[in-house]
């Protein structure tokens, strides 16, 4: 319905109709209030342009009363003047003009002129453009403010990594810009419960920040809907159209909520991964909620959009914050790890320092000890160069250990001496422990006898790195040994020569051819003769033993038939056996042995002599030989010699002692038998030199068995 189609109700002048109908009057009554209440300013003109009628809006627009306006020319109140000339081709005319109000106020208006709504009556409708422009400007300003807000909030979100700060800024700004009563961010927790974690609310309304809401308030299926992107704008919670359950209406009432706008804050569970086939899955993190408490509110689309965009930005901020949190956690974990590493490194450094200190101390102690020893102590590397020398080197060679270190052995000891050392040095570097004796020249030109031991130093791979050399001065011992040897050599010659004279002289006297002695004289001569012979044996035995023990004697080993040696020994002892009335039963066998024949015969005669001496008259002494497996290793063989007698026997506790020098079972017996006390000691030495063993077994009253073994000769 347009005004142009309506008859003008208050029109008084009707030139084309003489009698107004009753119907028209009713219409006027109906139209009058509507005209009055219309938002647009309406004026009715006569063809001259005078105002016939104006409505309230027009009075308001012109800023004048109806009385002031009616019957005045419209041109009085407007500029430029309005041409109201009727144009047949145009039913209505549009345009803009300025209304001049009192006090010089001007209003820019849009008008629509409709000619002849009634005959000779024109209708003008005005719309205030000034107000509309202001409204448009306001709208623009709002829009700009919203854009600014959005970019400001976005910027804050982008710049800040503090989620709490972002959320606080968001609710504050949204509340300000939407001019709403409460804005909050509600976080949905994993168990379905939730709570507002950020809120901006006008002081007039209750704060709900931090309150915990049970799952029932926001059930799972709702959560699912929101997770799918649902947005809720409820203009009036009480309206049946809102679709809120009664209980929920009751619930929100306590917070004075009349109207609300809810957008989800979503979280992308699967951040885009190039290799992942999974589509991103959104999870509801929380809600951005605006409440109007003062009354119902219809939410504009842009408000919804703003809320949604901000919710998206919050999502980004959450993702960033979570990333940051993860990063911080990683950094913290890594820091802790580094700290721990640092601590253990420090501990290791401390341990090492302690170990080094202990090592230095131990080295110092070792140096003190080695320097205090009169022995030369050195370490020689695989290039035969000295790496360590104790102070004794300085005393001997008048060279400081630091000067010796790094020098070759030959450089230190000279070529001649080195030639004697070389085989042992090489053996040590081949991994053998070597002990040898040498003569070295010291700095004053004197010679010292030394005993040298080389101990190879092996690393973990059992490779020889060098050797430790211990050199001790045995000059004194060597001098004593030489003196002893010289003494014995002198004794050997100097005793034997007079003994020869005495022995021969006594034998010659005993022939009686130089005159006959009395019986007593004869007895004295025999005593002298016997003891001279005993002295000869003693001297021989002492010499033998000394020579064997000193190593001066080397056994001249050759292959011999054992039978020959047995016969030789038996024949040698036959006269003595005959004198004693003792029979020697020998059972020789042709067995090859590797031995020094003289010494084996000496051993056999010695054992036979003892056996004869301790046999009773008519006794039998048996000499046997056999090859038997060695007790240690049955696969090997040895030659066993045995001399058995039927004498009085030897007590078991003395069986080992009899091989000691000058040990006799019965000292009174020895005098009677004319022994020297060295025979068995010599036998043992001889057998040991042949790598055999000697021992005795005995049964008191039944006799003794003296046995010795020799290694068999490998054919």
């Amino acid at each position, binding site marked *: 319905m347009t005004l142009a189609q309506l008859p003008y109700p208050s029109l008084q002048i009707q030139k084309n109709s003489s009698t107004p109908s009753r119907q028209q009057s009713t219409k006027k009554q109906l139209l009058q209030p509507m005209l009055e209440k219309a938002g647009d300013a309406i004026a009715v003109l006569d063809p001259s342009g005078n105002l016939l009628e104006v409505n309230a809006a027009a009075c308001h627009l012109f800023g004048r009363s109806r009385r002031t306006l009616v019957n005045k020319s419209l041109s009085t109140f407007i500029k430029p003047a309005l041409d109201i000339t009727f144009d047949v081709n145009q039913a209505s005319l549009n345009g803009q003009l300025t209304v001049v109000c009192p006090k010089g106020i001007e209003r820019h208006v849009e008008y629509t002129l409709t000619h002849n709504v009634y005959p000779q009556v024109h209708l003008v409708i005005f719309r205030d453009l000034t107000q509309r422009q202001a409204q448009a400007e306001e709208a623009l300003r709002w829009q700009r403010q919203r854009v600014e807000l959005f970019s400001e909030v976005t910027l804050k979100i982008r710049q800040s990594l503090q989620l709490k700060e972002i959320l606080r800024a968001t609710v504050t700004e949204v509340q300000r810009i939407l001019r709403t009563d409460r804005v909050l961010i509600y976080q949905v927790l994993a168990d379905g419960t939730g709570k507002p974690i950020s809120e901006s609310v006008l002081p007039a309304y209750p704060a709900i920040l931090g309150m915990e809401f049970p799952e029932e308030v926001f059930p799972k299926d709702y959560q699912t809907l929101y997770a799918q992107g649902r947005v809720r704008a409820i203009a009036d919670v009480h309206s049946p159209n809102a679709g809120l359950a009664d209980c929920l209406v009751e619930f929100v009432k306590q917070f004075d909520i009349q109207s609300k706008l809810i957008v989800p804050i979503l979280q992308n569970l699967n951040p885009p991964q190039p290799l992942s086939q999974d589509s991103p899955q959104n999870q509801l993190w929380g809600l951005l909620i605006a409440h109007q408490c003062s009354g119902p509110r219809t939410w504009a689309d842009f408000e919804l959009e703003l809320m949604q965009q901000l919710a998206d930005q919050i999502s980004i901020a959450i993702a960033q914050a979570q990333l940051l949190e993860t990063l911080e956690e990683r950094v913290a974990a890594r820091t802790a790890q580094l700290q721990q590493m640092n601590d253990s490194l420090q501990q290791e450094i401390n341990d090492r320092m302690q170990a080094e200190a202990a090592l230095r101390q131990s080295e110092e102690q070792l140096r003190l000890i080695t320097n205090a020893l009169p022995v030369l102590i050195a370490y020689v590397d695989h290039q035969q160069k000295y790496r360590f020398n104790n102070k004794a080197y300085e005393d001997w060679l008048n060279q400081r250990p630091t000067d010796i270190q790094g020098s070759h052995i030959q450089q230190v000891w000279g070529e001649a001496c080195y030639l004697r050392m070389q085989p042992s040095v090489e053996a040590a570097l081949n991994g053998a422990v070597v002990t040898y004796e040498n003569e070295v020249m010291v700095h004053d030109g004197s010679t010292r006898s030394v005993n040298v031991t080389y101990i190879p130093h092996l690393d973990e791979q059992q490779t020889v790195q060098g050797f430790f050399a211990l050199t001790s001065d045995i000059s004194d011992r060597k001098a004593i040994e030489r003196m002893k040897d010289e003494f014995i050599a002198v004794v*050997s*010659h100097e005793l034997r020569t*007079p003994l020869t*004279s005495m022995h021969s002289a006594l034998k010659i006297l005993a022939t009686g051819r130089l005159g006959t002695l009395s019986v007593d004289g004869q007895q004295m001569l025999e005593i002298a003769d016997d003891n001279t012979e005993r002295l000869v044996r003693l001297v021989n035995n002492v010499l033998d033993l000394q020579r064997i023990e000193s190593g001066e004697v080397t056994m001249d080993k050759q292959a011999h038939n054992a039978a020959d040696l047995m016969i030789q020994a038996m024949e040698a002892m036959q006269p003595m056996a005959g004198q004693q009335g003792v029979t020697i039963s020998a059972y020789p066998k042709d067995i090859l042995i590797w031995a*020094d024949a003289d010494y084996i015969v000496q051993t056999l005669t010695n054992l036979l002599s003892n056996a004869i001496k301790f046999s009773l008259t008519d006794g039998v002494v048996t000499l046997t030989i056999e090859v038997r497996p060695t007790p240690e290793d049955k696969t090997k063989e040895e030659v066993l010699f045995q001399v058995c007698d039927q004498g009085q026997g030897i007590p078991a506790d003395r069986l080992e002692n009899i091989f000691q020098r000058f040990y006799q079972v019965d000292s009174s017996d020895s005098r009677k038998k004319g022994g020297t006390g060295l025979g068995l000691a010599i036998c043992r030495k001889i057998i040991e030199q042949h790598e055999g063993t000697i021992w005795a077994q005995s049964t008191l009253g039944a006799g003794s068995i003296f046995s010795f073994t020799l290694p068999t000769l490998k054919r």
Partner: protein
Amino acid sequence: MEVKRVLIIDDEESIQTVVRFGISMAAGWDVLTASSGPQGIDTAQSELIDVILLDVMMPEMDGIATFHALKTYPKTEEIPVIFLTAKAQTSEKNHFNDLGVSGVITKPFNSLDLPSQISKILHWELQS
């Protein structure tokens, strides 16, 4: 068996005496004596000698030097020489044998046994 002529060279006079008594009593051989190497060489050159008993250990000229000297003279080089020694080592005996001596008799010995020992070494037929 004819009477042998034995020369004993020893710096020890008592040895000379017991050797002379023992040999003559046991076998009736003639025994000539000398107290040093040079004296013994002189005697050996001037007399007819069947065997020389030579003491190894003598001052100045020892038995080995005397033995070498005896081998240089045509008159004495063929005379068998038996060493008298206090050293009874096998190795020493071998050493003496290597020198070319006929034998070694070790001190102390019984001079009455000397004729039989000499005869055994030189493979003489000894009349009992």
